[in-house]
């Protein structure tokens, strides 16, 4: 039978129990070792850390040619996929699905880990905003009003939730019209918002840009406040995440939704969802929201438990520590999506050659075949996943420790970070349990 269009296909095997337990023990042990022996004065300071990037690199990255090459490539790719989404067949041969759910949503993690705020550089809507500003002669940075401070990252958190809801809950996520509608609203919200508030809107409201820029803080490329390009360790880079209202919500949605995705792949949940008479879309919406709330509330509770140092408001503490959850998220994303990204990603690259389902081979990738090496080596895969989760946990704990040195008073520095440490261990062990139980 002719049948060569699957995206997705088989899921990963659960990780073996011994590996899950080894990972959990390692995470637990390392957490307390960090607490016991790590430095007692803050070590990472985003304003001063890092080495100046080589001149040629700084010149290249800051040159308008480089910037506009990336911008126009991003815009061209967006247009290419938009044509497929509008004129292509409403079948899974259409590359739109793979581009949205694999290349964009999952691919922005490795791209940002390697290159920093990758999506910001290619963001097609940002480019449209820049082009409009050029046409009208306005300053792209300025809108009609200033964005109120309390808005913070809340729009991005809402956008992220809307996206994961489309991806993980909405039953018709793999039909074109919901995707077209979602992205039409996305573009509209960003264009109107950026006209109102200037380009800062993208840094606060674009779910992909906010996500990518957060993960980009785990790359080695950073900028000081004056814009100087520096190379620094991911830990030092992570310190530069700007805390603000809604940042806790952003990390909660990212982590909670991914955990929910693992959870709903568990066999027990499958059996429940197939035998219940409850409306599963609503059940899934509530459960996913619940996962996000658990992350957000536990992070908030664990961080406001400590009294801050003078000059730091207690209510700001959750946002000040939210950056330390980012490495945990990234480690878990690697574990959760590695096979999916590698294998469905290849499938998507193949499909991209034939955006309209006409048998075309525009990019020359159409004759490719998917390499399933990763699926065929489940032990390697399982070890990689556990290592990713543990590595993310370690980086997160160290980042939290350094921040505690900065914002907690001397006498509370160790006890004050205990609750958060416990919560992080809980995140990691839950993550490992979900990888084991799926």
């Amino acid at each position, binding site marked *: 039978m002719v049948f060569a269009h*699957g995206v997705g*296909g088989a*899921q990963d095997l659960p990780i073996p129990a011994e590996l899950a337990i080894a990972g959990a023990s390692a995470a637990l042990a390392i957490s307390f070792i960090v607490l016991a022996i790590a430095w007692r004065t803050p070590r990472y300071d985003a304003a001063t850390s890092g080495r100046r990037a080589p001149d040629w690199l700084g010149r290249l990255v800051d040159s308008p040619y480089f910037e506009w090459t990336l911008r126009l490539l991003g815009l061209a790719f967006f247009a290419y996929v938009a044509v497929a989404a509008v004129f292509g067949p409403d079948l899974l041969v259409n590359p739109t*699905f793979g581009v949205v*759910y694999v290349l964009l949503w999952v691919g922005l993690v490795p791209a940002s880990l390697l290159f920093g705020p990758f999506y910001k550089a290619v963001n097609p809507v940002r480019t449209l905003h820049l082009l409009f500003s050029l046409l009208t002669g306005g300053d792209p940075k300025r809108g009609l009003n200033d964005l109120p401070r309390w808005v913070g990252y809340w729009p991005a958190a809402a956008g992220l939730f809307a996206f994961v809801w489309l991806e993980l809950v909405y039953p018709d*996520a793999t039909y074109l019209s919901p995707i077209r509608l979602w992205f039409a609203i996305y573009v509209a919200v960003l264009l109107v918002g950026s006209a109102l508030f200037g380009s800062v809107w993208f840094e606060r409201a674009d779910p992909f840009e906010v996500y990518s820029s957060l993960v980009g803080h785990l790359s080695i490329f950073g900028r000081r406040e004056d814009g100087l390009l520096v190379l620094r360790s991911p830990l030092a880079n992570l310190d530069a995440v700007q805390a603000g209202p809604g940042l806790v919500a952003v990390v909660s949605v990212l982590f909670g939704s991914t955990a929910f995705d693992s959870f709903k792949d568990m066999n027990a949940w499958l059996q429940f969802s197939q035998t219940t008479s409850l409306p599963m879309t609503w059940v899934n919406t509530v459960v996913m929201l619940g996962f996000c709330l658990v992350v957000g509330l536990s992070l908030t509770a664990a961080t406001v438990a400590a009294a801050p140092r003078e000059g730091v408001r207690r209510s700001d503490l959750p946002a000040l520590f939210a950056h330390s959850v980012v490495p945990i998220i990234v480690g878990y994303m690697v574990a959760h999506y590695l096979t999916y990204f590698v294998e469905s990603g290849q499938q998507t690259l193949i499909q991209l050659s034939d955006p309209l389902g006409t048998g075309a081979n525009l990019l020359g990738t159409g004759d490719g075949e998917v390499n399933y090496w990763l699926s065929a080596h*489940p032990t390697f895969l399982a070890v990689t996943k556990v290592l990713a989760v543990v590595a993310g946990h370690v980086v997160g704990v160290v980042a939290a420790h350094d921040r505690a040195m900065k914002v907690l008073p001397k006498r509370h520095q160790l006890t004050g970070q205990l609750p958060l440490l416990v919560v992080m261990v809980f995140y990691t062990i839950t993550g490992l349990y979900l990888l084991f139980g799926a």
Partner: protein
Amino acid sequence: MRRALAVAAVAAAALALTGCGSEEPTVTTEETPATSTPSEPTASESASESPSESPSEDSTDDSGPAIEIEIEGDAIEPRGKRIEVKAGEPVALEVESDRAAELHVHSSPEQVLDVKKGESTMRLIIERPGIVDVEEHDTGIVVFQLEVR
């Protein structure tokens, strides 16, 4: 996400069958007997009233696990049951159905099994380790999951 994407993948691919007949088949399902013997009736799909497996094809069928599936309209048994099998090992599906149905096997790449009304036995081989959902197309019910090791 993977499941949702895969579900639609199969649905879409099934719809697309007529539209892309020129593509190379990549199915790894081995229905017994092989379709290369067109003169004989396809035992796997028309072995009505004969609960035993296809006689001619091979004797290894008995070694692998067998799964009984009952389809009565929209009622399907089992639902979401998980079964452990070995990669490359044939799994016998013993189906009793009161209607024609399509089983979508969400392996990588995907496979489709056509179920005819009556009793039939089909053979399924999954090449690589992973969790593979087998879904009845009309109802969207995941009949069982193979935990392939």
